[in-house]
């Protein structure tokens, strides 16, 4: 099963995993990543986060990333759920899960999707800090991580 969802509401990782591989007895494993709001960034306390996105483009961009993962690896299923709107420290932001026959492929495709989400999907984070709100800057490390997959 291949699923992409963009939503304000929280999600239930256990239920999402269950749905991903229900009825698929050929999958040997599922690699998953769940991104969380940290209470600290660049040394400053983070009181909350607002995730802005580009409605209309977001789903297309994320689906394109999942399609590229499917072309690269023989994966059985993939799930991407990404939240938007206001979030608090400890909240889930994103979940990516990939099922495959062998674990190496599920790990690779899961990490690929995360790296591309971080650099090619239209989301922007604005943090609330004790000094006021600030837009989160893109990390060079994320660009470098995404570049690994190009060769």
């Amino acid at each position: 099963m291949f699923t992409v969802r963009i939503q304000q509401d929280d999600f239930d990782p256990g239920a999402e995993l269950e749905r991903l591989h229900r009825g698929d007895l050929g999958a040997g494993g599922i690699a998953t990543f769940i991104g969380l709001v940290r209470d600290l960034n660049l040394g400053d306390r983070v009181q909350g986060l607002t995730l802005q996105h580009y409605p209309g483009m977001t789903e297309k961009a994320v689906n394109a990333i999942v399609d590229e993962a499917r072309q690269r690896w023989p994966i059985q299923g993939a799930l991407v759920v990404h939240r938007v709107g206001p979030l608090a420290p400890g909240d889930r932001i994103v979940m990516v899960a990939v099922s495959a026959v062998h674990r190496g492929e599920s790990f690779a495709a899961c990490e690929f999707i995360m790296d591309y989400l971080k650099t090619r999907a239209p989301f922007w984070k604005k943090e609330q800090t004790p000094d006021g709100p600030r837009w989160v800057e893109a990390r060079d490390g994320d660009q470098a991580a995404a570049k690994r997959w190009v060769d």
Partner: protein
Amino acid sequence: MARIRLLLFGRYQDDLDLAQAELELPDRVTDVARLREWLSARDAAWEGICGAANPRLMTAVNQQMADATTPIGDGDEVALFPPVTGG
């Protein structure tokens, strides 16, 4: 005369205090590079975002990632935004 819908996201939306606008383009503005040039001439804030001194500007045309050579025509939706930070 081409009319486009312009969208701004992230920091640029705050910098220009503008989320979206309908624009009529001069005939010479036919791609992303020329749109940036034209918008840069408006004022210092636009220049800061669309000018050549900001290599980090990302653009999408009709909800697809675009580059300097992507054509722009009547009815298109063009978005300007800083590097993305989701995930």
